[in-house]
């Protein structure tokens, strides 16, 4: 398989590494007008920025660009080669997502996958396996916090330029947690949302508090933040027979801490001993195979001519509907002003 990557930023580099070692990938080419053609290690890999793309040379396209060109490149990839792996978010807004979906509908036998790798992290996969019949019973509530500190270049980053990104921390990071929520409890609807831009003042939300509800009535809460001075990933799931708490997240920098999952069991029967502090098991994970897993699945679904198992158009639709509804429901940031 010959692959073309649009964009060689943070995500483009990750995808290049995964594709480079994949046994079914013969060649990988990159287009990124922002990269110096003399960059070490990219000899013969980087295509001239203004060159016309010979689409017949490529079997699959990876869109790893800033959000403002995502939908156009995704549609172009679909029309010319029919196999597209697109990083999240699937467009800057609902309208751009719909354009992608409409383009996909016109291309028969296409493969379209969106990069929602968080659900493939080991702690989340373990969580999913333990819910319901997995031992902990029906889910009672879900609560997730995902945030970062921004950093000195935060205001200059395209991710916080509304024109380029389409939104703030919710669309950048919170969208992953929304996907994970739906992976665990199914489709969600927005009950209420509060957005604020209290610190960075970029004109996009730096904090999002969102209350959601699953189709079966499970309450779900998200705090997505760009002002968590200690990088945080924390997901709590309360069940009839116990609870799960995923904290930390395996990442390239390791800044979210050691990825782990706490498994606790309800202990009413032994409450005198447990005193609301039941026995817990903590699983520590030290290997993140999520990047490999999602690319492997994309390539396998192409080879086997079957729908992909995750990151589907439907997964993307559900998450973009929620994002659309949150932005529609929350009071506009320009009316709130800064604190």
């Amino acid at each position, binding site marked *: 398989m010959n692959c073309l990557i649009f964009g060689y930023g943070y995500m483009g580099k990750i995808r290049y590494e995964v594709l480079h070692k994949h046994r079914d990938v013969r060649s990988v080419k990159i287009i990124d007008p922002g990269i110096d053609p003399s960059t070490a290690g990219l000899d013969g890999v980087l295509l001239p920025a203004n060159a016309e793309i010979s689409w017949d040379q490529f079997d699959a396209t990876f869109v790893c660009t800033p959000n403002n060109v995502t939908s156009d490149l995704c549609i172009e990839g679909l029309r010319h080669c029919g196999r597209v792996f697109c990083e999240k978010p699937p467009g800057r807004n609902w309208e751009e997502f719909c354009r992608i979906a409409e383009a996909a509908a016109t291309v028969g036998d296409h493969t379209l996958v969106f990069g929602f790798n968080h659900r493939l992290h*080991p702690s989340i*996969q*373990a969580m999913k*396996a*333990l819910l319901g019949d*997995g*031992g902990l019973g029906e889910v009672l509530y879900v609560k997730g916090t995902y945030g970062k500190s921004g950093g000195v270049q935060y205001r200059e980053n395209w991710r916080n330029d509304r024109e380029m990104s389409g939104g703030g921390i919710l669309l950048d990071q919170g969208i992953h947690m929304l996907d994970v929520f739906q992976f665990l409890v199914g489709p969600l609807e927005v009950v209420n949302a509060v957005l604020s831009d209290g610190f960075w003042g970029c004109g996009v939300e730096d904090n999002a508090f969102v209350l959601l509800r699953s189709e079966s009535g499970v309450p779900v809460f998200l705090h997505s933040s760009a002002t968590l001075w200690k990088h945080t990933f924390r997901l709590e799931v309360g069940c009839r027979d116990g609870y799960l708490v995923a904290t930390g997240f395996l990442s390239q920098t390791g800044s979210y801490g050691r990825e782990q999952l706490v*498994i606790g069991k309800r202990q009413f029967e032994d409450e005198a001993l447990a005193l609301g502090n039941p*026995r*817990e*098991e*903590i*699983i*520590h*994970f*030290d*290997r993140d195979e999520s990047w490999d897993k999602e690319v492997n699945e994309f390539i396998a679904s192409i080879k086997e001519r079957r729908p992909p198992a995750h990151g589907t158009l439907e997964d993307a639709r559900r998450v973009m509907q929620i994002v659309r509804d949150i932005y529609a429901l929350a009071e506009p940031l320009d009316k709130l002003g800064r604190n």
Partner: protein
Amino acid sequence: MRSIQTSYTFPLSSVKPLEGLLRYRMYCLEETRRTLSVSRRRRERSPVGGARLEPFDYVDGFEYLRCPETGNVFLAELADSKNWACLLSAASGYRHSPKAFHSEIIKERNENVYLPKLEWIQNTLRLQGLKKPLLMAVVTPPNEFSYVLERSDAFAEVLTVDEMKLVEEDRDKEKLDPRANQVNGGKKGAVEAAVLPESLDRVDDPLALLRGVRSYLKDDGLIFVTGLVCSGFDFTVLGRNNLYLYPPDRTNCFSLTGLTELLNQSGFVPLEISTPGVLDVEIVLAHLGHDPAIPLSSFERRLLAANPETRAAFQAFLQERGLSSFARIVARKQT
């Protein structure tokens, strides 16, 4: 790869009380002496990597040797396989008799030892997407844990297999006729998971046991291994004075690295390596109570004299960092 830490706590007295252990230990030492008087062979090289073994120490007259590469500790002298199998069988039978402490605290052992092990296996199977697998329990019968497994409804079938028979079967495989597959109900290549509760600690040839288990496992089949490791806290601190070190139960005492290497060599890829032991500190404390003159450093004595919260925090640290003496490993058969 994953590792597991637990906040489950229980006193030493509820699983292997030192006083009760001394009676059982004496029986094991006597039986081992008797067995070695009938048949005796010496291990000069590590049964795993082949490295020449170095002197470690003597435990009640039994010589133990140490592998300089992995830190594994091995009993120097063994009997032939047939006699070793008889020894393990005798020890197992004694454990099951009213004479041993095991039967006195069977309820506590069930709650604190066997059920957590069963839950660990069940949770791992769920995470690996295996439902009601055919499970092989590799033990020397009679074995209480294999009964717990058999009574559980978590498995399609539990095939209890004598660990020494697997060792012998592996050694004799070239001599066996094609009907060898009929041994153990014709399950070769059909078993989805195997559990080895301290089996590698006891058998005379751990590599042969793993090869034997491997031959029964399906491709990608899982093994669950538990054992005491010499790289853990109580073993490291107590060394030869550790009363939990005795043959035949501790014929092989692997380090955590050595155990992992053994599995790799045998064609398994570890998925989980944990030391979720809860008793290291209490074991050293019990030894100090038994013999106040036991050699300990001032730091160790200070730790043992610390309040229960400090001791619990230290035990949690041992668990989290792979430094407890009780090890659990899950590995997948590499194809």
